[in-house]
């Protein structure tokens, strides 16, 4: 059991003063000490090594990670990669079908759709990552406090999650976004984070509720560890798997929600390019120009698909109760 858990330094193993360099129990200071009599070398591996190995074995997840980094990279460096700027008008190339010159075609103002999609990826990726980071922070703190102490924080959290079971999230988001008015990517990200952190909070709360009763938490407490130390050193590291997985999936959810809000006209407004706003513009320009609504949508699907696969891979990799990989 203990060897399967994440790196769990026992509070009893705190090194006495002046003993720097002394070995921690279980981890040899010098791997060569572990050399067996018949000369087989054994390297010390942390749980992170195992997690990384398990993730890299998951070929679909690894491929998705590479593809996602490539797509996000294209968005991030859009001003270097994109052949045109996102509002460069070309009156000689109005509403053109995809060709070698404009691989995603052009819109009715002659703007290059490929360049606009690249800039749109940048906006969507920013919103997604920001929402992922923010809602993970808020969710972990509130979920952790709710799971550890219970009380009014726990009550509030559970009532909030109940509310989202009776009201569609999209409707609540639309009402809030409407009254916030014209959105910048930052404002929209804050709004999304303010409403979807409850999902991560629930995960952390559930995990903390069960970890609270574990023997090693009791042992830490007996050794005199304070609440904060128990949470930071013992409970958070053991919840890292679920937290990382939900944070990843939250990025995908945020990108989908950003797209739908911008599409309906309650999110990011033109001229800021966002994938949802591009789809809305494409729809306004007539559905006979199929390329304008096809490519931005395909990009959204591919991004979210990659994120979901990465989430699956992380779930398998970060679950320390999983059978270890050989290798």
């Amino acid at each position, binding site marked *: 059991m203990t060897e399967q858990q994440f790196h769990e330094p026992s509070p009893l193993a705190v090194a006495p003063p002046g003993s720097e360099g002394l070995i921690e129990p279980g981890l040899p200071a010098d791997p060569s000490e572990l050399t067996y009599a018949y000369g087989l070398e054994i390297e010390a591996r942390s749980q992170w090594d195992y997690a990384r190995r398990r993730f890299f074995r998951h070929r679909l997840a690894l491929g998705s990670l590479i593809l996602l980094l490539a797509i996000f990279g294209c968005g991030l460096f859009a001003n270097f990669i994109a052949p045109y700027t996102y509002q460069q008008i070309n009156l000689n190339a109005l509403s053109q079908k995809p060709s070698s010159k404009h691989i995603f075609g052009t819109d009715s103002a002659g703007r290059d759709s490929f360049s606009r999609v690249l800039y749109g990826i940048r906006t969507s990726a920013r919103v997604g990552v920001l929402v992922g980071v923010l809602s993970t922070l808020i969710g972990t703190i509130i979920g952790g406090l709710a799971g550890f102490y219970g009380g009014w924080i726990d009550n509030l959290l559970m009532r909030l999650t109940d509310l989202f079971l009776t*009201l*569609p999230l999209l409707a609540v988001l639309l*009402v809030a976004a*409407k009254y916030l008015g014209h959105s910048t990517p930052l404002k929209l990200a804050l709004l999304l984070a303010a409403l979807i952190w409850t999902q991560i909070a629930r995960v952390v709360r559930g995990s903390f509720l069960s970890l609270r009763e574990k023997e090693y938490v009791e042992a830490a407490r007996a050794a005199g560890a304070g609440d904060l130390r128990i949470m930071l050193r013992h409970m958070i590291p053991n919840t890292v798997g679920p937290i990382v997985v939900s944070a990843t999936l939250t990025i995908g959810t945020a990108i989908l929600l950003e797209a739908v809000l911008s599409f309906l006209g309650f999110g990011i407004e033109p001229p800021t390019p966002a994938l949802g706003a591009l*789809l809305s513009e494409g729809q306004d320009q007539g*559905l*006979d120009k199929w390329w304008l*609504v096809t490519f931005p949508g395909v990009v959204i699907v591919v991004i979210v*698909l990659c994120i*979901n696969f990465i989430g699956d891979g992380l779930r398998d990799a970060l679950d320390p109760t999983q059978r270890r990989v050989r290798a």
Partner: protein
Amino acid sequence: MLTFIIRRILYSIPVLVATSFLIFTFVSITGDPLGRLRARPDITAQQIQSIAHSKNLDKPVIIRYGYWVRDAVTKQFGTTLFGNRKIWPDLKRVIGHTLQFILSAIIISVLLGVAIGVYSALRQYSLFDYAATTISFIGFATPVFWLALMLQVLMVQIFLKWHVRIFYTSGLSSPTGAGHGFHFLIDRIQHLALPVIALCALSTAVYSRFMRASMLEVLNSDYVRTARAKGLVERRVIMRHAFRNALIPLVTVVAIDFGGLFAGAIVTETIFTLDGMGYYFINSLFASDPYPVMAWLMVVATMVILFNLIADILYGVFDPRIRYD
């Protein structure tokens, strides 16, 4: 059983009251309903004051909540802030259309999802299973609004190429008159087909994945082994022992998904300009009118609570292991 139902209904009442209070405070604190009027130069502060007074907007939130509840109960949600239009007749009409739309989506996705899920489980790791898995993963990543757009694009391309109109891309009925009886039905199906497909896709993916997992679990259970051991033919083992038990937990999944379908309706009805609840909601939001928005949220919350109540009761009917007292 009866006491359970009564207890469950009684429990729904405080939930509904709490939800109504949350909806009211949420919509009230997120914005100034008269902001649009204040921005207009041709309306004086005096006029705004009198509108605010007549709608009780100059009172504290908690008192306004009281007035709102009174209006909701005795005057069927009262009237809109702008134009004093009665809310309930409009809302009643769109509820009818949307229920037609959502219920047909639920029925189709349950039938399809169950069929695909069960077949995948029975032929685990077959080509069909892999194909279904792949398609449902793509389904999870596809935004409903984009699917709706692509279906429209497809119809437009077919029309441009072959000049045939299989399904319509907007509205509930043909503007030239839908006809009667059979013709009306065909016309309605031609209009509803694309929105229903768009709305069904995600639910079908969810249900089929769930059904596959549920079926696999049941197939490995002891009572299925017992059924096989006593010599039943495989068909009977699957239909009577495995399938019926695997179906039970799907009830909960469908109930939880029900609220999400309203979100899907907002998107699909807007794209296909269907005169339903979602379209009504978006239009009320664009008009910055808080009263129809609150009425809408209240109706949806009531329906979701009601649907969950039905699901709980059905669960008890289907699963005799559940005791209610």
